[in-house]
């Protein structure tokens, strides 16, 4: 479990010419086509695009939940499969995906049990990470006794408990209402600033992408590909008020234009 290769380079994720084609009974589906992308340590990268543009698929390829059919990808300098075996990343799903028969504490401890950590270490990490997402005191509760936002926070704590440098998040706040989502976005930014992790974040909300990210990857569907990569020049410590500033709106407009252009691409279909 040495990270020597990774630490020499600042590139966490390296994607070259990557394509993924699903073979179905209705013929091939080009989920991803010709993806080139590098993600640097400490980045907060968002994938944004309409449904079917492959943003979730790309995240799943990084996580080794799908296999690319062509091209190269490395995570921490190794293949995604090896990275997964090293537990190099934490993954947050769209639904909280907490196991309903485990308490919140037991849910957060789940990956630690699988890694074979001692119970003392597990206890320490569970307490620490629940603290981090403001869920201290809810250890003994079952997931269904918590609100949707709290459940999603617990699932973030579960992803952080592995102590990964890389956090992969697949529309984690997509199922929540706007008010809760704003709140969690703020907390996530604070968390990111505190822990200095690399975050790859899938979303279909323009304000969310612009508010959170240092880089925004705009994707377009059929075949799923990268339409544009937008660097954000917003300051690193942001509050929700930044969404009223002209800089923010300019960025949001760029993203919106990109999405529109990507969409008109296949309007003739």
């Amino acid at each position, binding site marked *: 479990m040495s990270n020597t290769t990774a630490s020499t380079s600042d590139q966490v994720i390296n994607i070259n010419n990557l394509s993924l084609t699903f073979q179905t009974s209705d013929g091939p589906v080009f989920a991803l086509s010709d993806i080139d992308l590098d993600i640097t340590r400490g980045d907060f990268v968002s994938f944004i695009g309409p449904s079917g543009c492959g943003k979730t698929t790309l995240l799943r390829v990084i*996580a080794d*939940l799908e296999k690319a059919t062509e091209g190269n990808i490395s995570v921490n300098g190794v293949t995604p499969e090896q990275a*997964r075996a090293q537990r190099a990343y934490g993954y947050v799903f769209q639904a909280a*995906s907490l*196991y*309903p*028969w485990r308490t919140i504490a037991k849910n957060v401890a*789940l990956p630690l049990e*699988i890694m074979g950590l001692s119970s003392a270490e597990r206890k320490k990490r569970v307490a620490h990470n629940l603290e981090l997402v403001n869920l201290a005191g809810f250890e003994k509760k079952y*997931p269904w006794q918590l609100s949707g936002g709290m459940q999603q926070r617990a699932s973030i704590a579960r992803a952080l408990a592995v102590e990964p440098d890389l956090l992969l998040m697949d529309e984690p706040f997509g199922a929540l209402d706007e008010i809760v989502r704003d709140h969690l976005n703020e907390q996530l930014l604070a968390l990111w600033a505190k822990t200095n992790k690399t975050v790859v974040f899938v979303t279909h909300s323009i304000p969310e992408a612009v508010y959170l990210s240092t880089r925004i990857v705009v994707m377009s569907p059929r075949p799923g590909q990268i339409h544009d990569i937008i660097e954000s020049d917003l300051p690193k410590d942001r509050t929700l008020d930044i969404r009223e500033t002209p800089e923010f709106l300019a960025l949001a407009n760029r993203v919106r234009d990109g999405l529109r252009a990507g969409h008109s691409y296949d309007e003739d279909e």
Partner: protein
Amino acid sequence: MTKMNSKRGFRYSFVPVMVVLCVIVVFWYLAAVFLNLPWQRDIYERAGNTEYSVTELVSGTLSQERPVLPSPHQVAQEVYKTTVEKKITSKRSLIFHSGVTLSSALLGFALGTVLGIVLAVAIVYNRALNKSLMPWVIASQTIPILAVAPMIIVVLNAIGIQGLLPKAFISMYLSFFPVVVGMVKGLNSPEVSHSDLMRTYNASAAQTFWKLRLPTSLPYLFTSMKVAVAIAMVGAIVAELPTGAVAGLGARLLAGSYYGQTIQIWSALVMASLLAALLVVIIGWIGTLVNRRMGMSPHG
């Protein structure tokens, strides 16, 4: 949320259930009077008694020794007499007979459940078994398996296996199928994101089994165990028919039908129903507890 509903549901259906039960009892009495009337008239005619009042006639129909349809209180009396008043060791004690049937049903149920779980795990973890054996398991549910009961009993008797085991074997055979089907469904029921989560942790198949698949399958297991325990009871009763068994509820039914002892048949039937209901309720109750602990139910 489903739990809240079912809790409210219990209180909300209690009164209607009681009312319906009362209506059934009333109908039972009416039917008993009506069905036993011809025979009672016959008795009076033969005795030359032409002057009988309606009340005499009705009470007569409800206290015949071998009525076409015994009245509820006759059955209740018989059950009481043969459970409370007879010694358990007595051949006429219904508790003794129930015990015989219950022990083979429970033994068979336990064996069938264990076997079913083991086979389900094998099917889920072996693609070839899943594709080759599973269709047969499902198809065999459409076959009247109970028809083989007499043969199994006689054949096992022929090779010297007697008593509890052959009957338990039939109960096992019958309760095994629903458990396999339910358990396979349950082991395959984890949500995609739940299994993906295990994959992101690089969990071994054994870890995924113990931490995800087994817990998720438990509600399905209990649902099928309810079916299994009911059918195990039927199996034990039917298994007592062909050999002219001397003990057990099935033997009571058979003996009662030979000698026209309708009250005995009905009391055996009531006892069998009570036992089956009790078993189903107990399993269902454990299942509800487990479901609540699991925070889910197979019906969503």
